[in-house]
């Protein structure tokens, strides 16, 4: 059964228009960050969301926790309509859905000790009685493998990887069922990345968490997710079981991405570019299938029809007219 269900959400950001544009009557432009995205997240799984920079994956993540309000669509969490929540119900939702941020350097309040940061979350949500907060803070630090004395220290005394652990501990403080991790390791050194990824997997095992893991690193997706959703220019183009998609990707874009995964063995390097050209401007997405200008197999129909995300005769959904 799905824990989180997203139905057709869109988010557009109006672009700044200069006075000249206005006087010349140029149309209002908007960045189409997320377009008609539908998605299911199942209890206890790790769902990966991958895509190039600027494809809207972070915006999607922020919509899920209502840091952005979607312009259209609906989000259900455990049967409740998330976008309609207010007051105490919304706080209850906040307690169950937490986020881990990309930049460990700006995601912690530099003027608060680690203990104060974690204690505040515990106190605001009455997670434990006031007297037990210090003990619970120590447990949380232990859970993310930090020393107990970290509580009295300030964020600047820690390394990037350690800070990310603090960010994870803060998310875990309110005992959520779903954690949305927005590129949690892309700001870290490769050696540290592995430790944080392992921590996520271990925590998921121990606490039965559901995880949405946003990244642009396909190797991470392959390593740690059960299912994967591939995004391109604000839309999901393919979503299904990770192992099967990696074995036989159906969308030309997914095929190109997987071909482009860096290979350690020189003999297996293909040497060819993954996808030709640049990501089109999200201010003015191409008509039809957004991928058609870069697609090696595009036909005339691709230039006119927007393909829906459907099974198309396969075991999982894909948004390509030619699939099937």
């Amino acid at each position: 059964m799905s824990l989180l269900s997203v139905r057709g959400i869109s988010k557009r950001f109006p672009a700044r228009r200069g006075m000249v544009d206005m006087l010349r009557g140029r149309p209002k432009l908007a960045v189409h960050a997320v377009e008609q995205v539908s998605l299911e997240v199942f209890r206890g799984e790790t769902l990966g969301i991958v895509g190039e920079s600027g494809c809207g994956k972070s915006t999607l993540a922020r919509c899920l926790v209502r840091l952005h309000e979607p312009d259209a669509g609906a989000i259900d969490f455990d049967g409740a309509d998330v976008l309609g929540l207010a007051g105490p119900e919304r706080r209850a939702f906040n307690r169950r859905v937490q986020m881990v941020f990309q930049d460990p350097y700006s995601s912690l309040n530099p003027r608060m000790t680690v203990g104060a940061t974690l204690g505040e979350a515990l106190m605001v949500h009455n997670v434990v009685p006031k007297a037990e907060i210090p003990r619970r803070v120590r447990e949380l630090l232990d859970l993310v493998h930090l020393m107990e004395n970290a509580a009295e220290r300030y964020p600047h005394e820690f390394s990037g990887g350690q800070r990310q652990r603090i960010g994870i501990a803060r998310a875990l403080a309110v005992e959520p069922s779903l954690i949305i991790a927005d590129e949690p390791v892309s700001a870290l050194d490769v050696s540290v990345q592995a430790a944080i990824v392992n921590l996520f997997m271990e925590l998921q095992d121990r606490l039965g968490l559901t995880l949405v893991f946003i990244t642009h690193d396909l190797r991470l997706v392959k390593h740690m997710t059960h299912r994967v959703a591939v995004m391109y220019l604000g839309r999901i183009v393919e979503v299904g079981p990770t192992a099967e998609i990696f074995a036989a990707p159906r969308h030309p874009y997914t095929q190109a991405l997987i071909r482009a995964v860096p290979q350690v063995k020189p003999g297996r390097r293909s040497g060819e570019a993954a996808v030709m050209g640049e990501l089109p401007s999200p201010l003015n997405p191409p008509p039809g299938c957004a991928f058609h200008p870069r697609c090696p197999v595009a036909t005339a129909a691709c230039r006119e029809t927007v393909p829906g995300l459907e099974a198309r005769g396969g075991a999982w959904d894909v948004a390509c007219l030619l699939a099937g």
Partner: protein
Amino acid sequence: MRLFKRLPAPLLLGLAILALMAAFAIAPGAFTPYDPLGFDFSALLAAPSLAHPFGTDQFGRDLLARSISATAIDLQIALFATIFPGLLGTLIGLLVGWYGGVVDALFGRLVDLVVTFPFLVLVIAIVAVLGPGLVNMYIAVTIVGWVFYARLMRSEVMVQKNGEYIAACKVLGYSTPRILFRHILPNAIRPVLVYAVTDMALAILLGSSLGYLGLGAQPPEAEWGVLIADGKNFFTTAPWIALFPGTVIVIAGLGFSLTGDGLADLLEVKR
């Protein structure tokens, strides 16, 4: 003691000057045997000497005693003429920076309106309407001065509110007052604090200017600006009457500026 060793030398010097000023203000009698209001007709317009290090004025009043007794009023001016506009401006800047949009647009026009007039002219105009005296001077400075604090605070809040730690607060469901006062305020207050200390030096100059014009402290209260104003008529014959209180103002201003600079370094956020 360890704290003192860690403090930079300019800050220590600034704090030492301010501590001396505070001592003057609390116990003026401890530093001079003379009564600041006592006439001495045997020593009219006496030049600086061992008996009167700063000399005396046309009534034989000891200028060192008068400069020291003026410290209490001038420090009061330095504090009150920054604290009231500082508090008001910080609060307004915090709210304007956070809410933005229409509130910010209205704020912008209001700021334009206030800064169109030269600061001193506006303050003098308000004091002229309200009547001379220190309380009215504080009111006038608050009406005009909050703008500078609000602008500083607004721009700093606009930077801080986009930090991911604020996003984390929102995702944790914290209330807006909690986010504003526990998270944004401590991270955005540094420029305001530093400016406030520097502004104290300017406030003393402002108080002295208004005192000189007869709109601030009223005689016979000794105030540095009033002392200089008294001395201007004797400047060719007895320059010490204006010179020494002027020097005291410079030193006090230096004390505040050094403290302000030192504070800026000390409060820097480590990231």
